[in-house]
């Protein structure tokens, strides 16, 4: 970490675990869960948020002294909406099938609370370089959870990763299926995502007792 001072490095490292946007700050759950049935969609979603939050944080931070506080929400929304339109158009141009899978959830990055939350809590009070690191850190923290959830849901739900069968073939009974293993269809349905995140929170808080809430 010679590149970054210790303080700057913490901006990136903190949100990965002890200040994770999803499990601790309770931000950005809205659009995150529905697309985690497949690992590929999760990764693309994480990258999109990385792009939007990284650039958006810098833009807001640069403008922070000239935005009247009364209309700051509208200004923030316009900045995010512009960035999201770019992401959406790029996805439509280069990964059309995937953009169909993500459907309205790309658009919902606009109202993803992570983005507004970081704008309000960080970018409006800090300089562009710090805001950039904060944006990267938080979207990585978001991406980590997304990828963990996507990994387990796809692996246990359909026995594949990124669409490649890794556990063998469920029909011809090769690999793990030869031992009597079956795909768990429960992992594919939407509510499973919530339960997986609940378990992640459980594990995280049993490891770090300081995070436990008193109801």
């Amino acid at each position, binding site marked *: 970490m010679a590149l970054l001072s210790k303080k700057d490095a913490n901006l990136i490292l903190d949100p990965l675990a002890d200040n994770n946007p999803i*499990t601790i700050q*309770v*931000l*950005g*759950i*809205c*659009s*995150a*869960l*529905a697309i985690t*049935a*497949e690992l590929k969609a999760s990764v693309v979603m994480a990258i999109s948020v990385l792009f939007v939050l990284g650039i958006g944080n810098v833009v807001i931070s640069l403008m922070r002294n000239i935005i009247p506080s009364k209309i700051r*929400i*509208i200004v923030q*929304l*316009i900045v995010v*909406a*512009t960035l*999201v*339109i770019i992401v*959406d*158009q790029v996805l439509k141009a280069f990964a059309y099938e995937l953009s169909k*899978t993500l*459907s*309205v*959830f790309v*658009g*919902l990055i*606009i*109202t*993803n*609370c992570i983005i*507004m939350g970081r704008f309000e809590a960080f970018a409006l009070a800090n300089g562009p370089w710090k805001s950039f690191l904060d944006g990267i850190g938080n979207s990585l923290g978001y991406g980590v959870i997304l990828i963990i959830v996507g990994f387990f849901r796809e692996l246990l739900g*359909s026995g594949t990763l990124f669409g490649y069968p890794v556990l063998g*073939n*469920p*029909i*011809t009974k090769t690999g793990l299926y030869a031992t009597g293993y079956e795909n768990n269809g429960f992992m*594919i*349905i*939407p*509510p*499973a*995502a*919530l*339960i997986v*995140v*609940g*378990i992640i*929170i*459980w*594990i995280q*808080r*049993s490891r770090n*007792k300081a*995070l*436990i*809430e*008193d*109801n």
Partner: protein
Amino acid sequence: MLEHIELFFRSIFIDNMVFAVFLGMCSYLAVSKKVATAVGLGAAVIFVLAVTVPLNWLLDQYLLRDGALAWLGPEYADYNLSFLSFILFIATIATMVQLVEIVVEKFSPSLYNSLGIFLPLIAVNCAILGGSLFMQSREIASLGLAFNYGVSSGIGWFLAILAIAAIREKIRYSNVPAPLRGLGITFIITGLMGIGFQSFGGMLTGGGEEAAPVKEKTTAEKLEKVDKKENNKEIDEKEISYNDAINK
């Protein structure tokens, strides 16, 4: 009339904003500690959805969709401005929320005080933008249906937050494992409620084999279907090659 009723029940129960597509989860989790505040926010969400979805329907119909500008003259019929829909929808929503705030403050200061910061929060509630985006992607046919869709998905969200708030008020007296307290158990309960709500899926088909003509499914269901289809295709291909191999 029938399609109105169908859309109404479909948006409340089957395509419930919270349990089927996870929209508005942030405020759902953050504001559901007490029933009273949950009711206030839920009512505000119903109202804002009921206003913004029809407004955005008009925008979509006469400004954004492919060929929507035809009313300006034949030379404009080729324009497709749908890439602008995010920015216009969010502008409508932000304006409406601001307007609602001003009106409520003027005419009912007591309600305004009890809602407090939740009113501006609605602008960034994904359920609101999600309502408009789903209205667009499901191609809802008329202004009346759009209004119906807004109101009924608002009611669905209201029901969800009311239920979780009531459960959370009770769960305070239960012996939940310490690391799971608060957020963790709320997530898991929401998941269980989601599984419960999935059983409403049979409501419009009567649960029988003879399915009523289903117009649109939730993205999640669509996703699942595509997944299954692709899996089946792969499986079919594999089976065929497997059978071929055996035959040879």
